[in-house]
């Protein structure tokens, strides 16, 4: 028991604020802007997501799914768990309405939740995406990637990665884990806010969240690949992986342990919580993709703990110049919010690296294509270090 006021490592809602305000306040060295300038907006314009490399064009749609088999874990009086899911997928459509990034209300609640002021509250909703809303999907038996965002972050903040994967021929399902972000809007206009934020400093909170998300993922997989699926035959149910950022990445490990359908996982900078059985370990492929804080011997020991229990294909990659949010769209908003991209890696570059390495991992494990990129440091991406318990190279 300590009677003194305990300083929390990082209160909720401080993520973006911390990143943006601190980056400005501390006058960290300016990152090179030349690369970012090709795809980042001008300081006054709306944010723009970098166009994916292709080869496919991308469609997107949203699903409202209701799991009546369990109450909402954050609001137990609500007897069903409702989820909003965005699907991104390859399409042959040549024209269409650009898919919305998020609603104006969601943008406002997200910015307010992160205590960002001085920008129009609808700013994020004006982000320009590269997907056609509601376009018909093209292809059959495509591999499926589930995306899970960081705590307090809406699913939209992984759109750059989602569009990149869909353009490469994946069906991508981004899940809003209701009440674990600042705003999720249901089709009837109800907006669910961050109930989980009330208890986010409780002991065991992370463990609870990854358990909830694993259950969310299993339910979404049932709906996407079961008899009631919207597009029969679009998804190959034997080729499913999960990718997440922060606690979404930790949830990928939890979902793999809970559901054998999830064949491979990527954890982008997330401290992990799920208990991998000591006896059996986890034999399916896993990629840890982290920023400087997730180097071996760093402040968070969870990856080291888990690394020993991963018995299958595994990689531990670190971008020392990256930030916790570098694997999301957040750095792309840096210019729009009048602040520098955190961490030193320009926004467009971190998007490219994230898309490239995550795709290589998925191509390797869902499509069986060799990926030398994953086997050793690459001269094309000198920012990326390959790590093991002893250190990084």
């Amino acid at each position, binding site marked *: 028991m300590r009677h003194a*006021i305990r300083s*929390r*490592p990082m209160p909720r809602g401080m*993520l973006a604020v911390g990143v943006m305000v601190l980056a400005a306040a501390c006058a960290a060295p300016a990152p090179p802007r030349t690369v970012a300038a090709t795809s980042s907006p001008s300081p006054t314009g709306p944010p723009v997501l970098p166009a994916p490399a292709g080869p496919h064009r991308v469609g997107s749609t949203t699903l409202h799914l209701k799991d009546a088999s369990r109450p909402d874990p954050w609001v137990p009086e609500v007897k069903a768990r409702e989820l909003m899911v965005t699907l991104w997928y390859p399409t042959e459509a040549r024209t269409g309405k650009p898919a919305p990034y998020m609603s104006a209300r969601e943008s406002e609640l997200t910015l307010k939740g992160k205590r960002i002021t001085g920008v129009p509250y609808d700013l994020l909703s004006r982000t320009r995406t590269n997907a056609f809303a509601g376009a018909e999907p093209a292809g059959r038996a495509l591999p499926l990637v589930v995306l899970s965002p960081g705590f307090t972050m809406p699913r939209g903040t992984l759109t750059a990665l989602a569009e990149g994967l869909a353009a490469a021929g994946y069906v991508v399902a981004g899940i809003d884990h209701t009440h674990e972000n600042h705003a999720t809007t249901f089709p009837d206009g109800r907006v669910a806010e961050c109930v989980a934020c009330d208890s*986010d400093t409780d002991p065991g909170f992370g463990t609870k969240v990854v358990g909830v998300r694993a259950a969310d993922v299993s339910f979404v997989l049932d709906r996407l690949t079961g008899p009631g699926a919207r597009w029969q035959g679009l998804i190959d149910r034997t080729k499913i992986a999960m990718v997440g950022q922060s*606690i979404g990445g930790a949830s990928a490990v939890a979902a793999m342990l809970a559901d054998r359908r999830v064949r491979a996982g990527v954890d982008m*900078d997330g401290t992990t*919580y799920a208990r991998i059985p000591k006896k059996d370990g986890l034999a399916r492929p896993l990629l840890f993709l982290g920023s400087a804080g997730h180097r071996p011997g760093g402040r968070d020991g969870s990856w080291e703990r888990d690394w020993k229990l991963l018995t299958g294909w595994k990689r531990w990659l670190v971008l020392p110049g990256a*930030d916790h949010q570098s694997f999301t769209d957040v750095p792309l908003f840096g210019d729009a919010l009048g602040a520098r991209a*955190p961490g030193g890696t320009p926004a467009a570059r971190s998007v490219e690296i994230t898309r490239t390495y995550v795709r290589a991992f998925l191509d390797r494990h869902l499509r069986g294509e060799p990926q030398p990129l994953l086997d050793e440091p690459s001269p094309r991406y000198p920012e990326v270090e390959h790590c093991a318990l002893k250190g990084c190279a």
Partner: protein
Amino acid sequence: MSGKGVAAGLALLFLLTACTGQTPPRAEAVRATEAGTSACAHPPRGTDPGPQTPVTIDVVEQAYLCILAYHYSGATLDARSLLLAGFAAFTQELNRAGHDLPEATMPALGGDRAADWAAFEAAYRRVTGRLPDDGELREKLAAATLRAVVAALGDNHARWAPGRRPPPGYYDGDQYGLGLRTSLRAQVGENPGVALPPLFVTAVLGGAAEKAGLRPGDVIASIDGSAPFIGGQVTSAAIAALYPQYPQADPVRLQVRREGSSRTVTLKPGLFQPDPDAVRPVTAKVLDDDVAYVRLGGFGPDAADRVLKEIARLRAGRTLTGLVLDLRGNGGGSPNEVNRLLGGFAHGEVTAYLCRVDGTCDTMRTDDTVPLVGLPLVVLIDRGCASACEHFGSVVKDLRLGTLVGTRTAGAMPGPAEPYLLGNNTVLTLPSRRHLAPGREVIDRIGVAPHHHVPPAAKDAAAGRDAALAKALTLLRG
């Protein structure tokens, strides 16, 4: 440490490193103090400190200057008392390590803070210069010195402790130890006069205690052969042995009595997953169909809103006649949460005075944006109710917002502490103002006495009875 706290903290790790200024050279720092500023500063908000580095004499100096600049008593205290305590601990640690030296004598101090430090540091360096080149020994000596300098303030909220890496195999929510709580807390040594026999188990959380079959109400007659009380005085070291911290891993042998029979159990400290209900910070239920019971384990972030939401939830669809707020074991937290929660019971009131050594005071007030709860209130308190918890209790008592039931609170409320980052990325916390209750009485060391004294008893714990709660319900019925 909270889950995404860690993850999120990592986000800014190197930003912080980039932002944290280096310790200024010594001479400069001393001059800075003379000018009324200090070598220490608040850690940047919302970030994790960078990696911790060893304590050196320069870090001790920084802490000394920080105390003189920012602690409540900094402007008026005789700084020699800090240096004397530091040097005493230094010599004791030397002796413990088998390296006592003839040169280890206290230098003469004249009362000039800068000159005295210089003399202290010279003596310290003269001794350590003659020691073997052993980094671990040097670190131990410096840490013991720093700890003693801070402890010399005699201030419960003036603290320094290096961070700890969690044990290998640790998961969020795990605890380390024997897996039990007893009628005495680990910190009983700080205020031994409050401890009364017998020592008994109050809760079994998991781990070794659970495996050994211990139960609430079990009386602990000895700990590694030591009696918990000798001549009516608590044996603090024996009590502390019940609460080992990683990497302490030696088994602890307990002689335990239950219903007249006695047995010996050996408990090995380790990681365990506590019963989630026992560690949940906020729990709520309805008792006897019309009394709301809310237990709050600490005034952490959102504590007030969580309690108020629970009350609203319990109220839905029924008429409540009273509220029991259980703050036993509530170790404190943020005064803002206290003021917010108090806003549910009174408006427009002063909840505390925070006074500097020169007599000037700031006031804290109820958060009047909170709607009044409007229910008769009984608050359960005990010796584990500390700091912010006592702030709450003192206001309930002074403003007659409700009835206090249980035992006197911890008496650990010198004033709200603020963190200061030291050069080795450890944090020193210091209060700069003294806390006074609304009636301007001191809570620190004294505690808040309940209206109704209902002490915990081993036989109640064994029978699963909660005498204080029973009294609370009687009062609400009355």
